[in-house]
């Protein structure tokens, strides 16, 4: 089954990449005019896609710390896979938000002229630190395996030889040293991941003008959502790409991951309930209006069907009743991870789709001066392209790099 799933993902990624190219081309040639976000709903699918991918990355990374920092024996074999998943998702997130800018060519200003009073100003530094940390950690996690695969024939051997950067010592002592370095790096990574993903949540949470975002719970929900969705993605990945697919050992790892994800998902739903029920009960207009849009607006089905039914109820049933089957757990992981985009959309959009002052809706017309938003063709295609690119990056990296090789250093 693993082979079939892998094949399906390959095909999907290639098709998505090819079809999505048109979206990339539109973004480069026509630009923001082909988008449906604008002045009143200034952030759309790409911002939602960015927090979605960054959440997947943070979640997958935090799972890797279970291996390298907390040294949970059972998960030992999936450390590299989670780091690699985190790296690929980070790339997708940053690429998407980069081309969301009105002036992508000025992105360097984020570094040279950072405003540290702005949470967005902090993000670039946190991402840079996280990116470097991921690379270094992944390298140390793979080092022994890179040495081992240096003798492989063809491209792979060459790549392994190059990437080992001449550090060929694979003695027990050297590997213990690697493991210790990994522990330190992972330990730095935990607060870093909490900072940057909690930070993304805070980026929204601090906006007093948008009552729907403006809550102390927002950063926490971001973190728990990241753990749930990133954990789910990793579960899916491990179920079908994980080391020693088909073995009893593999099954145990998947089952264990499934249980973790189940717990995280339930916790996420609890927070969601807290946020929604409290706001609905007090019914302060701006926030209640946003919630009304989520629950009963034109896109009610995004919440009820995509998020709750496909993204929560079905996976929970799978995890509870078929929790010992690799296929079912993997499917549950995929469902949660994919549908989590709906959660992210329902964070970004409803806050923006309400009038800040009565009468704005009809006061003036023009492109972008509307509160009704659904992503344009360009937005969807570019989103699909970025995700497919990341997917291909994962698949190719998986083929070429020793990501599921056996010499684990932890």
């Amino acid at each position, binding site marked *: 089954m693993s082979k079939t799933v892998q094949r399906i993902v390959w095909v999907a990624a290639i098709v998505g990449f090819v079809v999505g190219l048109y979206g990339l081309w539109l973004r480069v040639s026509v630009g*923001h005019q082909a988008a449906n976000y604008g*002045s009143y709903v200034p952030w759309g699918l790409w911002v939602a896609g960015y927090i979605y991918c960054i959440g997947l990355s943070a979640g997958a990374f935090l799972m890797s710390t279970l291996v390298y920092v907390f040294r949970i024996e059972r998960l030992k074999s999936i450390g590299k896979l989670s780091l690699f998943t985190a790296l690929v998702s980070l790339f997708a997130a940053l690429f998407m938000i980069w081309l969301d800018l009105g002036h992508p060519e*000025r992105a360097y200003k984020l570094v040279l002229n950072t405003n540290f009073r702005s949470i967005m100003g902090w993000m670039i530094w946190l991402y840079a630190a996280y990116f470097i940390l991921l690379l270094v950690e992944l390298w140390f996690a793979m080092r022994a395996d890179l040495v081992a695969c240096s003798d492989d024939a063809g491209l792979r051997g060459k790549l392994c030889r190059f990437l080992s950067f001449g550090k060929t010592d694979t003695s027990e002592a050297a590997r213990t040293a690697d493991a210790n370095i990994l522990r330190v790096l992972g330990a730095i990574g935990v607060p870093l991941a909490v900072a940057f993903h909690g930070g993304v949540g805070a980026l929204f949470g601090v*906006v007093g003008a948008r009552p729907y975002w403006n809550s102390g719970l927002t950063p926490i929900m971001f973190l728990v959502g990241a753990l749930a969705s990133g954990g789910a993605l990793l579960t899916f990945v491990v179920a079908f790409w994980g080391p020693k697919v088909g073995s009893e050992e593999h099954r145990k790892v998947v089952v264990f991951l499934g249980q973790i994800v189940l717990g995280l998902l339930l916790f996420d739903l609890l927070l969601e309930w807290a946020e929604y029920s409290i706001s609905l009960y007090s019914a302060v207009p701006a926030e209640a209006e946003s919630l009304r849009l989520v629950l009963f607006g034109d896109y009610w089905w995004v919440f009820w069907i995509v998020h709750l039914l496909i993204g929560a109820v079905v996976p929970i049933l799978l995890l509870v009743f078929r929790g010992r089957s690799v296929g079912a757990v993997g499917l549950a992981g995929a469902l949660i991870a994919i549908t989590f985009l709906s959660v992210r959309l329902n964070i970004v959009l409803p806050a923006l789709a309400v009038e800040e*002052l009565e009468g*704005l809706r009809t*006061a003036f017309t023009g492109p*972008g001066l509307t509160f009704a938003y659904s992503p344009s063709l360009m937005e969807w295609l570019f989103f699909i392209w970025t995700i497919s690119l990341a997917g291909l990056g994962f698949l190719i990296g998986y083929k070429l790099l020793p990501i599921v090789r056996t010499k684990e250093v932890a």
Partner: protein
Amino acid sequence: MPDLLEKQNVFVQMQEDIKRALQKPVDERRWVMVIDLRKCVGCSACTISCVAENKLPPGVVYRPVLESEIGTYPNVTRRFMPRPCMQCDEPPCVPVCPVHATWKRPDGIVAIDYEQCIGCRYCITACPYSARTFDTGHTYDEGTPEQMVYELLTNFEYGQGWDRESEGSPIGNVRKCHFCLHRLEEGELPACVTTCMGVANYFGDANDPDSIVAKLISRPNVIRLKEEMGTEPKVYYLV
């Protein structure tokens, strides 16, 4: 009628208020706008004069006139409320900008540096008044065979020539009302103020006790929008 003849036209008075303010160092000026909602008839001439003055493309608007209905049929009236940028004294749009592209000037006007803005649109989300809009580069003659000359006219916001032909900034930037800073610095009133046929708009330096606006904003029937946000707007409404 000697009295009437002697009484100065309010525009002339305001113009003089501005000239006096310009004599002072910039940080001693405090530009404010007062809008008398009882006089506004909702003609939207101010909106359009602003579009013309600042060469605003489709989708960018600095000063829409918001209409709302009060009462139920058949006992209804309408209220018209022009909404420029409030030039908040505590502007929530400023601290969120990741690259210092928007800031409060010493005279209180919140400015944007078009060359610095990366177009992230965080400030749009942070403004409680929806005063900021995003310029995606649309033109009015889209889909027509001929490019119109007026589409390419240079605009002079912030006292600098912005050339639309080059397709550079302000395309891709966030834009907003700046009280026609480029006109002010030349001693002229903001375009919306001069255009209003009912004289519903007043403009001047609130730090000058002799100015018209200083007198108006000390009245009890003055309100500011969303006071609860702590933004300290510098646009006052007479109700």
